[in-house]
């Protein structure tokens, strides 16, 4: 052990425990937008989404409604409700990552939606169900590994109407490529109520240096935000 390492060890020993947690190996902070937007989340490496019988029936129903121009099944589109995961990460609009020691914040241009990934914590065993679920993460080398669960029913996995149940668990890994100009996300989708097996999909994001996110208010796109039964 050389002298500087010993000196560092003495210095570290003098610090409170919380201050010793290792700094994140990379910084994902910045503004990003998806490359090659697609309304349909496609499995990594090709092939079909492994829908089970119930999942296929629900997806076919959504697609049939969409073909008729009826998007009542899509409350993100018709009522500005949060889109859920991974759909929020697949929208064709920029988002900002603000990486801090204990939390990684994703702040989306779309309806100013925030998302928090709490680092170094386990998922709650009895979460209050939320549209965008509850997310925890940790650094594994230069990769941010995120796990999310606690999703409400009714959101969709992508803009094409891919459904899920409340059993949904979403895994995400984030890493920088291309000298930090590209962010890659790999999603693992697990929902025994909808799919015959877990499956993965990949998205990439382009860094947008200098881009300023405008204030975007989804409700301004709607004719009314009143509940359907009160609309005249």
């Amino acid at each position, binding site marked *: 052990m050389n002298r500087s390492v010993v000196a560092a060890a003495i210095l570290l020993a003098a610090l409170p425990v919380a201050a010793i947690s290792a700094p994140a190996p990379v910084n994902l*902070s910045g503004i990003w937008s998806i490359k090659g937007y697609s309304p349909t989340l496609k499995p990594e490496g090709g092939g079909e989404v492994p829908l089970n019988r119930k999942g296929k029936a629900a997806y076919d129903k959504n697609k049939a409604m969409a073909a008729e121009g009826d998007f009542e099944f899509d409350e993100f589109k018709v*009522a*500005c*409700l*949060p889109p859920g995961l991974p759909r929020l990460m697949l929208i064709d609009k920029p988002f900002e990552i*603000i990486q*801090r020691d204990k*939390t990684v*914040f994703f*702040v989306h241009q779309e*309806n*100013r*939606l*925030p998302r*928090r990934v*709490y680092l170094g*914590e*386990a*998922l*709650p065993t009895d979460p*209050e169900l*939320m*549209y*965008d679920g509850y997310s*925890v993460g940790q650094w594994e080398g230069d990769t941010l590994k995120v796990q999310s669960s606690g999703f409400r029913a009714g959101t969709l996995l992508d803009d094409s109407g891919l459904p899920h149940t409340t059993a949904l668990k979403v895994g995400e890994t984030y890493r920088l490529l291309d000298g930090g100009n590209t962010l890659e996300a790999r999603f693992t989708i697990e929902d025994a109520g909808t799919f015959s097996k877990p499956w993965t999909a990949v998205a990439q994001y382009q860094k947008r240096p200098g881009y*300023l*996110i*405008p*204030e975007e*208010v*989804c*409700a*301004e796109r709607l004719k*009314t*935000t*009143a*509940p359907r039964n*009160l*609309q*005249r």
Partner: protein
Amino acid sequence: MPKFNSRRGRLPVIAPASTALTLILALAGQTQAAQQGPPNLNGSSDPTLQLYASRVVENWAPEGSAAPNPDPRNFEGVWWIGGYQYMLGPGLYAMAPLKPEYVDLLQKRIRQKNEGKPEADAASQCFPHGMPRIMESPYPIEIVQTPEQVTFLHEVAHNLRRIYINKSAPADWPISWLGWSNGHWEGDTLVVETTRINARTTIDDEGTSKSTSLRTTERYRKVDGGKRIELVMTIDDPVTLEKPYSYTRYYYWRPDIRPMEYVCEENNRNAPVDGVTVAR
């Protein structure tokens, strides 16, 4: 998952005061308010000008909560205002120095409210609350701070403010609900100038008018050993006001709180239908 104050299933209005004494005082105040009701505008005897009942309470974190960051220029974390004032004037129940035509408009709005027919309001349509009103919201605010940007993540309707440090708005930056905020440090005080605010909301819930010439100046500093942030808000609007005015608010350090997902658009029973609020 660490233990957080869950707030599940209860109305997030005002957190309990930390000491029995302040709680008793607050309750005593409530009882008095319930008996007398809030005052009328400018002390008028006209009951059709009665104001909403406002409250100023303490909102300290529970005993044993984590200590605030000792750096006076580090505002990161969750903060929660003490109380809620429906009229944002230079003091409790005090009217802003409005020009006469806007006093008339305020009176009209208060009368409409007291008739049970409030003017359709932006926040009731899930639009942002506007400035300065968003800073009065009785919901927690999470502050995320980097040297270039201080971000306010409001729980209420996921209102979002980015305060750019030493950065003016681009010439073509659009007018918006919460405007463009340019911040700078004066010692340990964060000074925030906000402009380019639309006039689709009013300054407060009672209906104090503003125009797109509105400029707010906020001075934030940590006080009480970092357990509170003091805000001195100065409001200037040469169109609706006779002169600028200021008021002070306190935001309490609340490490026990985690902001919740707040979805205004879900079954929004306050939303106006055909221009009339039909809340039941």
